[in-house]
């Protein structure tokens, strides 16, 4: 078979593309089960306190209203590992926007009208939603998100900083950010007797099944969760969110299939956000730019019900070879919604700050910012001392510099005017860890010569369905069009979520193993296949999660060119270029899409996106896509993603590293550094909106 073994890496088109653009792909809210009802939540109008009474009389009197669930009558749940899922269990209001009732109606309109008619009375308490560096309730947590120790200190960072010849000591602020996937969170639940079937917009149906089984005290065998098509998540659908619990409750209460489709304006309070981070970053170096000390101290917030600590100081443990290092996190519990994962939690804000400070150091030391980074390239991972399985940051910087024509850059800031515009360029490094989790998969050879791969992977718009078919075709040695991939259903062999840039590695590993086994079985088989075909199964527990002696990370470099309008303070990006070293790229088309999508999100982080906490109400103010400014097409310029193919034997059978998140890491720093190069003004608070930029001109 001459055309085998070439599927991996090819720019295969996404398999569900036609269904999506023609509208035939059904999402979680579009499951039109017969008799389906709709539910609309009532959210808390106070930031802290308790519900005294919920008066549902007027709502229940409205035509089409079926039921009003409150903490007094909603089904009791078993204790939840994630407190944000314990909805309608008690009268406590931990933050504004918390669910206090759910109205079920025959139609969406009836449910919405019912929700508007519910009267909630509260006992209101004073609230505090304002994060400050010196907040009296700040404490040092044990761990930050991802299981990282909250504090690491090696050598004598304070002493080395104090005696450094060149010093940078800067405070930065990254505002709260929201994921805002195109498809808001939604679920449709129905009970078939004691069996529960749920369509959920989720990044991982296996966890949703386990969670629902636990909360409703069911056997996992009696729960099916389907996440066939998901319109983005960026972490906000990484674990179950409360809407799916509400849908199941409402279905149980009414005996009807029920859809809960959260309106976008509810999302900011209930599906997580990137917590604001206050940074102090100090870099000490010798006169020639060799780092001697890095100190990255982060203060962030969490809610009163859940500790989530954005691990923003972690990147400095990986990036540069300073012998003396401190990285630490403090967290303040406030009466705010619970923060959670948003694309590259930790790395996105942390690398914005580290890479901005590196630019400050380059200016202070009179060095080219590309060369400064290369000068401080470590031999081993600074924090662990482990060797890198592969690290091609320097190659990314060099290749990016070549493509961007960095050599022609005049380093002097504020000197390139084109009429009222100032022009500048900037660079920043990127990194993201390599992760993988155990998964199960089944490969099935059918008598008609086809193959079916079954695994509960999730395609959140990344092309997972397509890439897994490529992995399978490659391992089986068959053409890509002979392989079908069944994913997005918890009845399939269980698999981890699409998150941590680890989905393809985790699922692909199991698919590869199952298909390799099936290929062996087929090789030994003679004659026609039995009518049921042949099957092989794989479980990568103990393999995918085995300890590894190597430090494994993807690296990259971002280059940006911006214009700053001196009349308005508007910053616009002219060129954005990313070069990545992320193992083997498994699908050139979908990989490019992920890279440039994440770079665009980084552009938004740099220039347009932020959520503003209204201190009086405890509410995020931006609650629709008119107010929360994700970049529009007109903001996204000439954008390019390239990669350096790495041959790293220490990863997984495909030799891949994750690519879903690295594109957002460092992008904001490259843009901010370009703004400094354009104007000579260093901004240390995002986003770089006209009000801030104009003030500096």
């Amino acid at each position, binding site marked *: 078979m001459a055309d085998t073994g070439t599927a991996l890496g090819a720019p295969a088109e996404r398999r569900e593309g036609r269904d999506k653009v023609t509208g035939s792909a059904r999402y979680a809210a579009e499951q039109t089960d017969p008799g389906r009802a709709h539910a609309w939540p009532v959210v808390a109008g106070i930031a802290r306190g308790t519900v005294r009474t919920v008066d549902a009389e007027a709502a229940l009197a409205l035509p089409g209203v079926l039921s009003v669930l409150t903490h007094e009558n909603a089904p009791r749940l078993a204790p939840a590992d994630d407190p944000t899922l314990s909805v309608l269990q008690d009268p406590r209001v931990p933050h504004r926007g918390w669910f206090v009732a759910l109205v079920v109606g025959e139609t969406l309109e009836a449910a919405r009208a019912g929700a508007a008619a519910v009267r909630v009375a509260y006992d209101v308490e004073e609230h505090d939603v304002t994060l400050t560096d010196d907040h009296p309730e700040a404490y040092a947590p044990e761990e930050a998100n991802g299981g990282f120790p909250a504090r690491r200190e090696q050598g004598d960072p304070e002493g080395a900083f104090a005696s450094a010849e060149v010093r940078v000591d800067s405070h930065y602020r990254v505002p709260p950010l929201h994921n805002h996937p195109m498809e808001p969170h939604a679920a449709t639940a129905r009970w078939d007797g004691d069996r529960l079937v749920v369509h959920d917009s989720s990044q991982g149906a296996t966890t949703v099944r386990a969670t629902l089984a636990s909360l409703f005290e069911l056997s996992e065998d009696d729960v099916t969760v389907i996440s066939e098509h998901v319109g983005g998540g960026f972490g906000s659908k990484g674990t179950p969110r409360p809407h799916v619990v509400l849908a199941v409750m409402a279905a149980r209460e009414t005996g009807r299939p029920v859809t809960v489709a959260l309106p976008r304006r509810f999302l900011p309070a209930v599906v997580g956000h990137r917590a604001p981070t206050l940074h102090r970053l100090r870099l000490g170096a010798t006169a020639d730019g060799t780092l001697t000390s890095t100190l990255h101290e982060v203060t962030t917030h969490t809610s009163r019900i859940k500790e989530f600590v954005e691990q923003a100081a972690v990147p400095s443990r990986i990036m540069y070879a300073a012998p003396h290092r401190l990285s630490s996190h403090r967290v303040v519990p406030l009466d705010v919604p619970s923060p959670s994962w948003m694309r590259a939690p930790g790395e996105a804000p942390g690398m914005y700050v580290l890479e901005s400070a590196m630019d400050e150091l380059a200016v202070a030391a009179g060095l080219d910012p590309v060369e400064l980074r290369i000068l401080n390239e470590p031999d081993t991972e600074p924090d662990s001392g482990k060797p890198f399985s592969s690290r091609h940051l320097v190659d990314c910087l060099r290749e990016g510099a070549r493509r961007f024509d960095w050599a022609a850059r005049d380093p002097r800031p504020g000197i390139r005017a084109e009429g009222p515009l100032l022009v500048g360029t900037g660079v920043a490094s990127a990194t993201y860890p390599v992760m993988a989790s155990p998964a199960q998969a089944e490969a099935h050879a059918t008598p008609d010569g086809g193959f079916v791969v079954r695994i509960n992977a999730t395609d959140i718009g990344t092309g997972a369905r397509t890439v897994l078919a490529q992995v399978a075709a490659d391992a089986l040695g068959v053409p890509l069009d002979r392989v079908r991939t069944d994913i997005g259903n918890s009845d399939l062999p269980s698999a981890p979520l699409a998150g941590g840039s680890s989905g393809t590695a985790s699922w692909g590993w199991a698919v590869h193993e199952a298909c390799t086994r099936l290929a062996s079985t087929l090789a030994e088989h003679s004659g026609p296949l039995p009518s049921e075909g042949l099957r092989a199964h794989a479980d990568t527990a103990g393999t995918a999660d085995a300890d590894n002696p190597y430090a494994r990370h993807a690296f990259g470099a971002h280059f940006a060119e911006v214009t700053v309008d001196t009349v308005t303070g508007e910053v616009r990006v002219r060129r954005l270029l990313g070069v990545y070293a992320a193992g083997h790229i498994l699908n050139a088309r979908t990989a490019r899409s992920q890279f440039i999508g994440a770079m665009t999100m980084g552009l938004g982080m740099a220039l*347009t996106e932020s959520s503003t906490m*209204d201190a009086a109400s405890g509410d995020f103010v931006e609650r629709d896509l008119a107010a929360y400014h994700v970049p529009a097409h007109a903001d996204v310029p000439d954008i390019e993603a390239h990669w350096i193919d790495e041959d790293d034997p220490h990863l997984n059978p495909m030799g891949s590293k994750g690519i879903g998140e690295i594109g957002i890491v460092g992008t904001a720093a490259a843009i901010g550094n370009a703004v400094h190069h354009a104007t000579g003004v260093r901004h240390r608070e995002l986003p770089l909106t006209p*009000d801030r930029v*104009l003030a500096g001109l």
Partner: protein
Amino acid sequence: MKPLAYARAGSVEEAAELYAAHPGARYLGGGTNLVDLMKLGVEEPSTLVDVSRLPLDTVEELPDGSVRIGATVRNSDLAAHPTVRDRYPALSQALLAGASGQLRNAATTGGNLLQRTRCPYFQDTDKPCNKRAPGSGCGALDGVHRDHAVLGHSPQCIATHPSDMAVALAALDAAVELHGADGPRTVPVAEFHRLPGDHPEQDTVIRPGELITGVVLPGATAGLPSLYRKARDRASYAFALASVAAVLDVEGGVVRQVGLAFGGVAHRPWRARLAEEALLGAAPTTAAFERAADLELAAARPLRDNGYKVRLARNLAVDALRRLAPPTST
């Protein structure tokens, strides 16, 4: 579900009758703002009187040199109209600077003028807002108000009017044609929207039941150099942090005619009369433009977090006037 009646009007007179016959009615144009507000619970009309198909969908050149725009002409059609593009470029530019392509395809001329503020406190029925619920207070005054007014606001309301189109119309001396129970009347666009004062719930001077039938662009500003410039947080689909529409006619080295209006800084398009007076008859120099802008903006009362708008508006005005002035004069 909240019951809602819908009636499509075939004529202006029928629209007025339907409105009068249905207490709590609202006229429906493109629906790009009203329907959103209904979903948010901010607007709760008993009846929608659909005026979007009234025979008011043409742009006519009148014998006196003016141009009459029907109230139901869509924003995208108006922006692309050759007469508008050629003779009133600021209007075409303002329309194209607003909203998104899809919204412009739906939004009407009349509806654009009557759109409500996008103040987040106005749009959230759980928050205090004197415009939405008179007497409930203003959440933005001490809250989040980076996008809010610096001119003409009151302790009751600091909202801005969001229209780009209206700013260009104000600078171009356009007038709104209204039809009401007392018959037709005409109001200059620059006086059509109100300042909030003690009654921020009233956006405009329109009377109950009155219908916008058209907008007239005068012959006097036709063909004059004009432009619209908008500063915003992202390159498309964002409301103005501040904007300016400018019309400038220079003859014999002096300003013969000038129209200047700011957007995004007040409860209405802010016609800069003081600046205009200062410029009339003056040489069109950068120094004169700066003085004029400063004169106008001396009345600005910025809030805690929106002081940048004063400088932004000044820069925009000076820049726009410089662009319009003959190349040798500045």
